């Protein structure tokens, strides 16, 4: 059974400031959005593989053409 420690020599902790709570909520939301995007495939695969055609052999894939004129 736990007991709350009472320290009469120390004033009570005033609590976490509001700006820290706002930062925490924004941080959690952003992390969740990134995790959802990465693991649900909404944003496609992550890393260089997302730009490589799936049927191409690894390491020998020609780069995607830019569609711009070469000099």
């Amino acid at each position, binding site marked *: 059974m736990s007991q709350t420690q009472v320290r009469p*020599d*120390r*004033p009570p*902790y*005033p609590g*976490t*400031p509001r*700006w*820290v709570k706002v*930062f925490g909520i924004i941080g959690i939301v952003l992390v969740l959005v990134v995790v959802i995007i990465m693991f649900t495939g909404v944003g496609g695969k992550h*890393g*260089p593989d997302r*730009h490589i055609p799936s049927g191409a052999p690894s390491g020998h894939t*020609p*780069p*995607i*053409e*830019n569609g*711009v*004129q*070469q*000099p």
Partner: protein
Amino acid sequence: MSMTPGLRKFVLTAHVISSVGWLGAVVAYLALAVAALTSADAQMVRAAWIAMELTGWFVIVPLALASLLIGVVNALGTPWGLFRHYWVLVKFLLTVFATIILLLHMPTVSYFAGVAARTDSANVFGLRGELIHAGGGLLVLLVTATLSVYKPRGMTPYGWRKEHEQRKASPSNSP
């Protein structure tokens, strides 16, 4: 653990220089990504990928690591501490997060830079990812810079306990 005033100023100066340098290097990196993304010249896109890789590995990564390490030394060597004040703790966590993402992302940049160096064609699709990563990094760095200047109030429970232990030990010597 407390540093002498001279050493403290030196470490703080090194921390400011590395952090502001990191921010500036990310802006330069973003400029390269935007220039490549809006360019119709394949040579420009290839050159941008190669420049972004060099800037990333030889400027941004060293500055990020320096900023993180010097920031930790600076915090631990002053009465601010690393875990006592929320603004220092939030800055530390954001810097660690940005550094990890940077180190995880740089191999992707190296891949595209390698492709650009070996072939005549250029990849503009990866550049959108660069805008997201570098833009997010810039946002994080702007937040940490703002926290450093404003130093919003608020102590952690650990900081609160330590503060009152120190005050009890030496009432006239509070940070």
